């Protein structure tokens, strides 16, 4: 059995660890509220935007923007992966990657190249090591209040690649914030838009379906090219931004839960260690007494 002093050091270090995990838990608990507010505030915009885009995809326009055309043979797909910058948030990132890998492998088995744009340090580290995947862009250290401007660079990389025909399909992977206990790893289609519209229809997003069924088109002011370019660019920005906000809220929620269970575990370990420390102490005392008694009897 370990000596009393050894156990005592172990108790001390576990207590210190618990202090750290408690602090992290508290920090996340306060940050999650802010992140959630941010996420909720921008949800109506994202929702309205998706509705407009679903309408645009249904319009029978003469103008053909590359975003609106579904390509039949797919040679290269892109993934925009949103992850966290820091660790200690349970299985949040690994769950997302685990959900993503089979999808990537499936494309690779069909001979399709896979490009990845990583948002967040963890995705950068993961995809840099992953074989057969090209990392074409990254954005890290977005902070507690991500701004759309911080994402424009990486979004442009993807959009340009798509327009030039280097990517035939783009997906967005992020953790959807359901509630504090649940975060759902999600992979949504980003481009081309018919794929998005089909997905929306499958989800029965209210208002996405239009009452009119005959062919119709918008009146564009000033003209279709200018307006659609603007609208589509804004749409991609808003979807990626929303993904980043959801992921941020998910990060804090996951960290809070992970740190809470770490603190609880530390408390349990401390309890067990204290028990064995007391046992060791008692055994030592008992032994000493019996030695004294034995010595006295011998005299």
């Amino acid at each position: 059995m370990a000596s009393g002093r050894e156990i005592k050091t172990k108790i001390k270090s576990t207590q210190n660890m618990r202090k750290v995990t408690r602090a992290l838990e508290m920090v996340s608990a306060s940050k999650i509220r802010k992140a959630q507010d941010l996420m909720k505030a921008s949800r109506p915009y994202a929702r309205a935007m998706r509705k407009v885009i679903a309408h645009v995809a249904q319009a029978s326009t003469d103008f053909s923007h590359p975003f609106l055309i579904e390509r039949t043979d797919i040679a290269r797909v892109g993934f925009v992966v949103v992850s966290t910058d820091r660790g200690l948030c349970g299985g949040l990132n690994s769950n997302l990657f685990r959900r993503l890998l089979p999808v990537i492998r499936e494309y690779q088995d069909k001979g399709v190249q896979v490009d990845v744009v990583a948002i967040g340090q963890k995705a950068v580290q993961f995809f840099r090591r992953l074989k057969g995947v090209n990392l074409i862009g990254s954005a890290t250290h977005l902070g507690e209040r991500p701004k759309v401007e911080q994402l424009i660079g990486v979004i442009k990389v993807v959009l340009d690649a798509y327009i030039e025909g280097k990517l035939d399909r783009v997906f967005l992977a992020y953790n959807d914030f359901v509630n504090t206990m649940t975060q759902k790893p999600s992979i949504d289609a980003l481009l081309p838009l018919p794929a998005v519209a089909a997905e929306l229809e499958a989800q029965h997003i209210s208002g996405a379906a239009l009452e009119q069924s005959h062919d119709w088109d918008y009146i564009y002011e000033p003209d279709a090219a200018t307006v659609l370019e603007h609208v589509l660019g804004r749409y991609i920005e808003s979807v990626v931004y929303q993904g980043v906000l959801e992921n941020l809220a998910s990060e804090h929620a996951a960290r809070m839960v992970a740190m809470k269970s770490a603190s609880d575990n530390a408390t349990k370990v401390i309890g067990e260690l204290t028990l064995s420390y007391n046992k060791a102490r008692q055994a030592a005392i008992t032994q000493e007494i019996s030695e004294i008694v034995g010595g006295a009897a011998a005299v």
Partner: protein
Amino acid sequence: MSTIRCDIVSAEAEIFHGEAVMVVATGELGELGITPRHAPLITRLKPGHIDVVLQGGERQQFYVSGGILEVQPQVVTVLADTAVRAADLDEAAAQRAKKEAEDALASRTDAVEVAEAQAKLAQALAQLQALERLRKNLKH
């Protein structure tokens, strides 16, 4: 009277949501008055005001700094970059912004800076206009 659903959202919040008799907005090519069963239309918005006429003739005024307007026969959607209720606009701040933008225009030569200053000036002017209109409306 028939009505049209109107949604005004900005990147930060949902600003207005409800039934309207008419919606007036400043499109890129000029003012638009949208009534129920309007033909589908999509346009960019200039910095300016958006008037929503409710059933019973009550008017609600908003200011947007730019964005997108989508019209479907039953619904108008305004995706604003930033939007505020006109009553919440701060006139002093708008005046200051206007002055700053004018100063910047006078002193700077770089093309990007000039464009930036012009955009700011347009926004400040639009805010002031929205305030002006609001004031007139209150007097009536």
